[in-house]
């Protein structure tokens, strides 16, 4: 059965179904129990499970992640929630030096199956320490997988595969996606990690976007359709491993690529992606790849300022039009 449910509900449903199916799975995080998490994602789960399965922790991000690693080494499958993705800086050492590397350092003889769920992104006036898109910093740590679901359907399937994965998976949700709705099957299903998804077919230009920027890009594509501009929107869904083939196929077809992400201009995932596209599609490209990102600026508090920093539909549209207008 398929119903329209929200992204937050899809996460919750996945957690419920997976935890019912496997008692090695448990949740660990700040106020994930009665409070239901800062964005209400786990509201109600505590009454279906108990405080052993849905563990409220002290405010101790390093410790929480470390505990999860230890439990994972023992064969459990912890799902950690870090309340805001900004706070994931605190347990970085445990994630990137321990969880990511244990399998390798130990010669393949131990594994760390765990998921860290955390909401990123701006747009609700929480300023510089609660609004970042930080996923890019994890790209350089082999051993980690990085997932950024952009819709309710995707989040349910990707979370299921992440929980079943035998590696540490960083699972970045987005504050502004939580209330977006989509048809989602009730039955559990999985979406393979490492497969991009063409969210919309098109032939004139390729837009590769992540997380909430997929939704914004789709709106722009829809709008441009009425003018006869055919925009293909590709969502990598997982930025590590990256399905570069699906992306380069699209770019080879259209000859033009706009990459959209919410991280700053300097240092985000699309830097790597741009460089890969140019490497693989050099002879197909009509013009350099264009990146649409946040400004190189901490996210400001005030609403208008925040909107200036974070890419909006107008900026995406402008980038597409300008690239299409380029004389080859």
């Amino acid at each position, binding site marked *: 059965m398929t119903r329209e449910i929200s992204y937050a509900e899809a996460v919750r449903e996945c957690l419920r179904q997976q935890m019912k199916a496997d008692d090695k799975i448990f949740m660990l995080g700040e106020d994930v129990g009665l409070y239901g998490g800062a964005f209400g994602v786990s509201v109600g789960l505590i009454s279906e499970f108990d405080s052993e399965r849905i563990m409220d922790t002290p405010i101790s991000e390093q410790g929480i992640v470390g505990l999860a690693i230890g439990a994972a080494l023992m064969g459990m499958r912890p799902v950690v929630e870090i309340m805001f993705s900004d706070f994931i800086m*605190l347990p970085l050492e445990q994630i990137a030096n321990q969880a990511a590397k244990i399998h390798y350092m130990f010669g393949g003889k131990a594994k760390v199956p765990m998921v860290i769920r955390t909401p990123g992104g701006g747009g609700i006036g929480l300023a510089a320490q609660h609004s970042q898109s930080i996923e890019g910093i994890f790209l350089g740590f082999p051993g980690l997988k990085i997932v950024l679901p952009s819709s309710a359907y995707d989040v349910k399937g990707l979370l299921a595969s992440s929980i079943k994965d035998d590696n540490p998976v960083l699972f970045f949700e987005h504050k502004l996606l939580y209330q977006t709705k989509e048809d989602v099957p009730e039955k559990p299903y999985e979406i393979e990690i490492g497969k991009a998804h063409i969210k919309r077919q098109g032939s004139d230009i390729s837009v590769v976007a992540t997380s909430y920027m997929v939704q914004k890009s789709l709106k722009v594509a829809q709008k441009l359709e009425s003018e006869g501009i055919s925009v293909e929107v590709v969502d990598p869904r997982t930025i590590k491993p990256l399905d570069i083939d699906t992306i380069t196929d699209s770019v080879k077809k259209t000859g033009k690529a706009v990459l959209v992400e919410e991280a700053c201009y300097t240092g985000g995932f699309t830097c790597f992606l741009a460089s890969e596209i140019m490497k693989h599609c050099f002879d197909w490209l009509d013009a350099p790849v264009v990146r649409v990102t946040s400004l190189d600026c901490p996210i400001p508090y*005030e609403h208008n300022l925040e909107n200036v920093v974070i890419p909006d539909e107008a900026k995406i549209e402008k980038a597409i039009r300008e690239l299409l207008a380029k004389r080859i």
Partner: protein
Amino acid sequence: MEKVSRNLLEHLLVMMLRIRQFELAVEKNFQLGHIYGTAHLAIGQEASAVGAISALKPNDLISSTHRGHGHCIAKGADLKLMMAEIFGRSTGYCKGKGGSMHIADVSAGNLGANGIVAGSAAIATGAALAAKKMGTGQIVICFEGDGAINEGIWHEAANMASIWKLPVIYLCENNQYGMGMPIKKATNLEKLSDRAKGYNIHGETIDGNDVLAVYKTVSRIAEDVRAGKGPALIECITYRIRGHSLRDAQRYRPEGEAKKWLDTYCPIERFKKYLTKSGYLKTGDIDALLSSVNKEIEEAVKFALESPFLDASRVTEDIYA
């Protein structure tokens, strides 16, 4: 400790009223849609901010938290600039770039609110280190919630403060919850000030809703800290009357608990009672003080509402010094 003066008593009351009325105004203006984002109100916790900071010298320092309006006001901040910041205006302390969680006034001794729990613990300790190195005689109060003392950085800072005998007081406002987490589930301690034993520093737990007790305790301890006897941890028992933030459904809290605390332990009502009973102030005096505070707050709101937003072209200013 010398006997407290009438002036001081009035100051303590006015400051607490300012905080209370300021927070009520923030709450109301959020409901009216004038405030974007969120804020964390200190309603019910006025005594710890006011009692502690009133025990400092003017050039002493504080660091604050996400629940920082009270500390900021008690440190003498300009209500207009605070309100304007919370309203996101260019006239605010941070030009609208920081908002409620980042109000600071370093040159006036406020090292800033902080959006990260325990994010200020080491920063405050470093300010104390600098004060000691430069021989300024300043001390620092590092405000923090009960939840903050479980963060690793707090531990690292407290240890260094202890070994180097830095002039810093960790003032832990135990308002019974860290978000929805009851303090008894977050630590296994009778008193949070027992944490001090792990660093061999002075620890003390007091009634944080008794402004005079806070004032007297902090005054006494500040003297030792200033004299170089090393840091201290003071736990102020208090209660968070409102939700965690302006957007908290408060599922975790027993019905009526907040009302009970407010009815029984409201730091302002208790202090008013004390002042009138002991004859320092009459009810009429208090009413007059309140209405003058209310006027200040109204002016602050007016100032904020009438202030312009920062021009978008200036959004990337102030990234580098």
